[in-house]
């Protein structure tokens, strides 16, 4: 879809901005964020998650929780027995984006995240926002975005392989 990125921006609107403003600069210490009112983040039509560090995700909204479950036809649908998995990959490029947001205390738009779930890994496209303390110190980061469409993820993997094959293969 050519205008996919524009659509993404259109879907990350005022509601998200105001939900983030409710949290940003409202608390003294990270622990207080665990009790924050997240009711305005819950219904947003995009995946929102918040984390203190890449291995410390403490919130995932309703749309994000949909990613936890593997899509299944109804005749195979069964209760999930294993605990859900949602973690951020430890990659220097992705960490660099976090460092930027935290150190500059500015949002970073059109960025990506690689999420590990029980059914595999998937890419999200969206924005990262800093959550600061009352005194302006970085407390956490909020990511808001959408899963990159499967067709695009597969195309990009194919492109990756084409590029690496041309460099090393017997062409």
């Amino acid at each position, binding site marked *: 879809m050519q205008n996919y990125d524009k659509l993404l921006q259109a879907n990350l609107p005022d509601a998200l901005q105001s939900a983030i403003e409710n949290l940003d600069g409202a608390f003294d210490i990270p622990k207080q964020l665990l009790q924050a009112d997240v009711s305005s983040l819950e219904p947003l039509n995009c995946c929102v998650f918040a984390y203190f560090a890449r291995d410390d995700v403490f919130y995932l909204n309703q749309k994000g929780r949909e990613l936890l479950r593997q899509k299944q*036809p109804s005749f195979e649908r069964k209760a999930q027995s294993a605990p859900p998995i949602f973690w951020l990959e430890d990659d220097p490029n992705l960490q660099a984006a976090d460092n930027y947001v935290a150190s500059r205390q500015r949002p970073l738009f*059109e960025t990506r995240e690689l999420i590990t779930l029980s059914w595999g890994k998937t890419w999200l496209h969206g924005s990262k926002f800093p959550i600061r303390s009352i005194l302006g110190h970085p407390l956490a980061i909020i990511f808001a975005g959408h899963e990159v469409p499967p067709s695009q993820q597969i195309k990009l*993997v194919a492109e990756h392989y084409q590029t690496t094959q041309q460099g090393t293969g017997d062409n």
Partner: protein
Amino acid sequence: MKKNVLLVEDDPALRMVMREVLKDEFDVDEADNGDDGIHKGLSDTNDLIILDYHLPKKDGLQVIEAVKAAHPNVPVIVLTGFLNPDSEAQFNQLGASKIFPKPFNYRALLEVVRNLTLSASSPSEVTEVPVAPKPFVQPQLAPTETEMFADSLSTVAALAEKLEFLQSVTEKYWIEPSDISTIREAARCMENEIQSFYGKINNTLFDAGGFNSPLIRNTKKPHLSGNN
């Protein structure tokens, strides 16, 4: 080893959905008319037969009669849209193990197939077939690439199969209301295949190390001097 299920059903949509339901646990063979159903049903490889009542060439009653005469212990499940009490009695008399009126619950069907195939084989009947060692094949691709290539092919094949099925449903002159749920199920099957595929392929790429996906390269990177 997987048990063999013969599916005798003339509706390609139903065949496809049932194949999807059964394929993980059973080897499924198919026939789309009564003649073929009898021909395949007479083979002694079937562990269970799922049989539609209304079939072209020969109906379900003729099929079950022929099959049961040759293999009285093979369980037969009958599927039917409309069944009068006489036919039901005939099916029962001919040895039908279970009759499912359409539409039926696929999960319930799978449960019955599991139970019937389990009870049909006593431990003394199970014989171990010696398996010939697989010839060693020198891999031409790196292990990661081989795995991804195999996954890609099987995913494309699974999707092509479901697309063929969708075409068979959507290109009919009339699309029946009952087709809609079948189409939805097929779409969910395809979503499931695709999700499993890219979830795994991203895993494989990441675990292979030296991860330099275009998804990272093409992302707008934070420039410390720029205006993000």
